[in-house]
């Protein structure tokens, strides 16, 4: 019960306190307008280059924008503890660490799903993206899976915020590298092998591939391998994030650098 309370209530309070973009004047331009313009930009870039259809870019970018919450949101909510000088107090508590940190991911997952659904919806309205109505629930499920795995990756990025002075030095390139390496805009088979290999170990890659097939008419069952791969990648990043958080916590205590700015 205590685990659940720390996970749920702690995560919610942390989100309220540390997620700086809650005000509509921040949230709308940053979390809704920016993703929409990203989708439009790459869709038109695709038309100009003759690479792929609008649907390819809408699905790829529509799902990738969940990283706005999954990566940036996690960076703000975990790294933010350091900026606000609450990290020391937080880590002085005997609270279960998995509940403490995983709880911080939950609101960002909900937020990421919202951002992606909005992006895909606007893509449907403005571009040549018309998935069959029957595929919408499956696409939604894939958005949830992708956002979960992306938030696990974001938790690892946030963990680095316990170590580095400015977490956005990690979060910015992480977000933009996903655009390149995860098959969001360039088909993986057109990238050099080493890039596509890295991409296959990142979140979103397999989920986006699955969502493209589903949007094209495939059933969820026929892409189950890709879905399980996405879940496995997310699970691995969760473990990585947890280990990083524990290591940086121990290291920070040992060197008395937890709140060094």
């Amino acid at each position, binding site marked *: 019960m205590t685990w659940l309370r720390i996970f749920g209530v702690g995560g919610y309070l942390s989100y309220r306190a540390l997620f700086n973009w809650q005000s509509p004047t921040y949230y709308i331009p940053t979390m809704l307008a920016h993703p929409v313009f990203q989708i439009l930009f790459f869709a*038109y870039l695709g038309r*100009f*280059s003759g690479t792929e259809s609008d649907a390819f870019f809408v699905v790829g970018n529509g799902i990738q924008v969940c990283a706005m919450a999954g990566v940036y949101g996690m960076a703000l909510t975990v790294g933010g503890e350091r900026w606000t000088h609450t990290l020391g107090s937080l880590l002085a508590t005997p609270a279960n660490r998995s509940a403490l940190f995983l709880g911080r991911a939950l609101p960002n997952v909900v937020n990421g799903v919202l951002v992606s659904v909005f992006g895909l919806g606007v893509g449907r309205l403005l571009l040549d993206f018309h998935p069959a109505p029957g595929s919408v629930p499956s696409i939604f499920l894939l958005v949830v899976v992708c956002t979960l795995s992306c938030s696990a990756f974001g938790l690892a990025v946030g963990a680095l915020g316990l170590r580095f002075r400015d977490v956005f030095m990690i979060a910015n390139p992480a977000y933009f590298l996903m655009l390149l390496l995860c098959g969001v805009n360039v088909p993986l088979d057109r990238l050099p092998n080493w890039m596509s290999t890295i991409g296959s170990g990142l979140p979103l890659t397999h989920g986006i591939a699955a969502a493209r097939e589903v949007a094209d008419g495939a059933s969820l069952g026929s892409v189950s391998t890709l879905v399980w791969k996405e879940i496995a990648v997310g699970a691995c990043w969760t473990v990585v994030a947890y280990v990083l958080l524990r290591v940086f916590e121990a290291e920070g205590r040992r060197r008395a650098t937890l709140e060094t700015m």
Partner: protein
Amino acid sequence: MRVARLVWVGLVFRVKELTRSGLFVFTSVIEPLIFATLTYYLFSAGSRPETVIYSALGAGMMGIWTSTLFASGGAISWQRWQGTLELLVAAPPAFLLVIFPLTLGSATIGLYSLTATLAWERVVFGLPFDPVHPFQFVLAVPTMIFGLGALGLVIATSFVLYRNANALSNMLEFPVWLATGVIVPLSLLPGWTSVIGWMLAPTWGFEAMRRSVFGGDVWAPMGMCLALSAVYFGIAWYLMGIFERRARERATLSLA
């Protein structure tokens, strides 16, 4: 002379300040290279290989806008956070002349993005960079930077009054890339977006650079870029007067 000195000192100070910001250097160094790589593979995968060279220059120009937007957007917010905004507003020179070198400095840093991107594409992907009009290219680059600095000034102006206005800088990266035709020709976009593009000085600055590289009349777009920059100054001057007075009346200048 005093104004020129003010602008020069402010510009040098701003460039020094930005080059000591780890986050900004990282953004200026890494992000343009990621986009250059992305556009290279995207266009290489496409059915129009002739557009690869076009995209190479576009990616470089995209980097300049990112640097300008990021730093211009933060110009006033950072002064506010550091507690120096009130001192700058209270200083004898017009506040606009204090802020302009800050935005111009941001655009100047963008030169690095352009250079790094072109060098990256040359070294890593073997894309040639042989401007048809090298002399005009050398002139077009500072013209475009001036235009970007002027646009950054208009953006920064709004930050005096609105505490959350820097959220705009989170949003404007992609739209301006689209509206200025930096990498996607305006003819591919809906007609009404061209009207917006024509009103943006960087559109003409980018066009001047593109023509100096691929051929065409460079002087006309360069002139348009300078003329629109002058208009931006007028707009920024007018808005700054209103916003500054209102911020003083409401005592919101230092509220972060």
